[in-house]
C-alpha cells in the first residue's frame, strides 16, 4: 500500500465521523467534569483526534492497541460504546470497567484495547510484547502503542524500541507529539529527535501531519502492512496541538505555560475542519446530527447509571481467589 491513494468518500466519511465523535465526547466529558458528574477530571484529547481516527481506520477489529492517560480518542476510535465509556468516566457500574478504572483506564479489553495507562510510557513494552506473542502464534494481527512526546524520555520506552526491533514485533509505535509534556516543551525535553531515537534502533520512522486524518491513515496503513508482513516495528511521529488543558485541573489552576496567542495559533489547524471540508455540507451536518443524538444519549445514560456498591470495592482484585 502506498500513501494517499486519492479521494475515497466512504473513508472520508468514516474518518470525519470518528474525529467528530471524539470531539463531541470530549466536550461533553469536560462539561460533566465541571458539573461534578465525572470525578477526578480528565486529560482531554481535543485537537488530537485525527491520530486516533487515522490509525484505527488502518486496523482490523482483531488488532490490538494500548492507550494512555489521554486515551478517550483511541478507545472510541477502536469502537467503544460512548455511553458505557462515559459511564466509566462517571464511575458507574455499567461503565466499561464497572467504574473501577475511570478516565485514565477507560479501556475496552473486548475490543483489543490492552489497557489505558496512567503511567507515562508504561504501555509501550506491553504493546510490543503482545505484538510479538501474536506473531509467534502464527497470526498476522498487529498491535499499536500510542504514547506522547513525553514518553520518549522514559527509559522503558527506549528499551521497548530495542526489543521490538530485535525481535521484529509487529507493533506500530505512534507518538503523538503535541508539543508539551504538561508544562514542558518537547524541544526542552527531547535531545536529538523522536524520529532519531527510533532510527537508532533500526526502526523505520516518519513524520506525519497528525491533524490530517487521511495522512495519518495512509501512514498507518503502510506501517501496519509492514508489520503484518513480518517487517517489524515502525514509528510514526504525529505532529498535533493539544487544544485544551493538560488536565481539566488547569481550567481553574491556570499554570500559564503557553500564551493565549500561541494557543490560538495552535488551534488554527483543526482536524475537524480539515476532514469536515472533505464532505459535502449536507453529509457533514447529517453526521453531526446523528452524533449529537448519540452523545447526548451517552451523557443521559452515564448520569442515570447506578453507582457501584462500596461493599464490592475490591471485587476482581485477583483473577482467582486463593484459599
Amino acid at each position, binding site marked *: 500500500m502506498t500513501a494517499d491513494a486519492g479521494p475515497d468518500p466512504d473513508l472520508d466519511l468514516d474518518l470525519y465521523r470518528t474525529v467528530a465523535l471524539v470531539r463531541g465526547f470530549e466536550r461533553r466529558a469536560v462539561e460533566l467534569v465541571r458539573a461534578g458528574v465525572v470525578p477526578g477530571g480528565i486529560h482531554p484529547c481535543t485537537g488530537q483526534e485525527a491520530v486516533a481516527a487515522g490509525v484505527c481506520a488502518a486496523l482490523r477489529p482483531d488488532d490490538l492497541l494500548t492507550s494512555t492517560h489521554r486515551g478517550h480518542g483511541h478507545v472510541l476510535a477502536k469502537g467503544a460504546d460512548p455511553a458505557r465509556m462515559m459511564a466509566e468516566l462517571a464511575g*458507574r457500574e455499567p461503565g466499561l470497567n464497572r467504574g473501577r478504572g475511570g478516565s485514565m483506564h477507560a479501556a475496552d479489553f473486548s475490543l483489543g484495547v490492552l489497557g489505558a495507562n496512567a503511567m507515562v510510557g508504561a504501555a509501550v513494552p506491553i504493546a510490543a510484547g503482545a505484538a510479538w506473542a501474536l506473531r509467534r502464534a502464527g497470526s498476522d494481527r498487529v498491535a499499536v502503542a500510542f504514547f506522547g512526546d513525553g514518553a520518549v524520555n522514559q527509559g522503558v520506552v527506549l528499551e521497548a524500541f530495542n526489543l521490538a526491533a530485535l525481535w521484529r514485533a509487529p507493533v506500530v509505535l505512534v507518538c503523538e507529539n503535541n508539543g508539551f509534556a504538561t508544562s514542558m516543551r518537547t524541544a526542552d525535553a527531547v535531545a536529538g529527535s523522536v524520529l532519531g531515537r527510533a532510527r537508532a534502533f533500526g526502526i523505520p520512522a516518519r513524520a506525519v501531519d497528525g491533524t490530517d486524518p487521511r495522512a495519518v491513515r495512509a501512514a498507518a496503513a503502510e506501517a501496519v502492512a509492514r508489520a503484518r508482513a513480518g517487517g517489524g516495528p515502525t514509528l510514526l511521529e504525529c505532529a498535533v496541538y493539544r487544544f485544551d488543558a493538560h488536565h481539566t485541573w488547569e481550567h481553574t489552576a491556570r499554570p500559564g505555560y503557553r500564551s493565549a496567542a500561541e494557543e490560538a495559533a495552535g488551534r488554527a489547524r483543526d482536524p475537524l475542519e480539515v476532514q469536515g471540508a472533505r464532505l459535502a455540507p449536507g453529509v457533514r451536518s447529517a453526521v453531526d446530527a446523528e452524533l449529537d443524538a448519540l452523545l447526548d444519549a451517552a451523557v443521559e445514560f452515564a448520569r442515570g447509571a447506578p453507582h457501584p456498591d462500596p461493599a464490592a470495592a*475490591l471485587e476482581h482484585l485477583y483473577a482467582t481467589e486463593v484459599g
Partner: protein
Amino acid sequence: MPKLSYLKALNRALGDEMARDPSVCVLGEDVRVAVSNVTAGLVKRFGPERVLDAPISEQAFTSFATGAALVGLRPLVEFQIPSLLFLAFEQIANQAHKVSLMSGGRARVPVTYLLPGSGSREAWAGQHSDHPYGLFAHVGVKTVVPATPSDAYGLLLSALRDDDPVVVFAPAGALGVREDVDPAALGPVPLGRGRVHRAGTDVTVVAVGHLVHEALAVAEELAGRVSVEVFDPRTLHPLDRAGLAASLRRTGRLVVLDDSNRSCGFAAEVLATAAEGPRLRAAPRRVTRPDGAVLPFAPALDRACQPGRAGLLAAIGEVTGVIEEGGGT
C-alpha cells in the same frame, strides 16, 4: 497568629533552606510552573540552575540527584505522583540508600525525595493512589510523614539537612490543613522523634500523616467516655520506639490508624513492636487499607478502601470495651 497551610509550609521550608544553603537544588517535573505548588516562586528567587524542570525520566533524574549529591549538592527530587516511587525504587532503595554502608562510610547521599499529594486524591484510580511509605521504612530509607504544617516545615528542613536519603510523604489528605503558627517559632523538627498530639490514659492511637487529624477528631468525640492518646510517629523509619513505649506504658492499649495495605504494612510493625514490649491490657487493633488493595476509581469505592473514623471508633471500642460497635473499615 497567622495561619500557615501545609503546602505553604513545605514551600517556605524549601525556600528558606535554599536561601540558607546554596547547595540545595530542586529537580522534578513541572517544578518551574509549580504544578504541586511546593516550588511556587522558587525559580524566580533562585534561578533555573537551582530549579530544574526534568523530562519524564524519573529513574534517570533520581540517580542524577545521587550523582550530584556525591559531589556536594543537596538535591530535593519532587515526584508528581506516589506510584512514581515504584519506578524509581531501584534508584532509591538499591542505589542511594546503599552508598553509605557499601563505601564504609566514605560517601554519603544527602537527597530528599518529596511526594506532595501522596495517598488517594480521590478518583485518581489504581495507578495514582498508593501510599507506599511502608516500603521505604522496610528497606531502611529514612521515611517521614508529617501531619501538620509546622511539622511539615520542620521535618522537610531536617530532611534537607540530613546526610542520608530521606523520603518525605506529604499526604493529599493533609495538604489543606492550616495551623496558627508564629513564623519565628518555625524551625527544624528532629527526625526519629514522635509527637503526642493529645494525651490520654485509656488507649494509644498511633496515627500516620493525614490520619492524625482523623484520630484527633475521634479522640474529641470520645472525650469524657474514653481518654485517647494520639501518638504521631512523624518519622516511620527510624521509628521512635521509646516514645511509643512510653505512651503504651501510660495507656496499656493500642490501635494503629495507617493508610497502608494491611499485610506487611506499617501498622504491622507498630503492633509487632508493642507485642515485644510489656503485656498490653487488650489485644491491639489496626485500621488500615485492606490487604493488597488497589484503589478503585469510583469515589465511594476509593473511600471504602481507606481507613477512617468509623473503623477507628470500632477498633477503640473493641480494645477498651467502653463503646459500642461502630462499623466501617
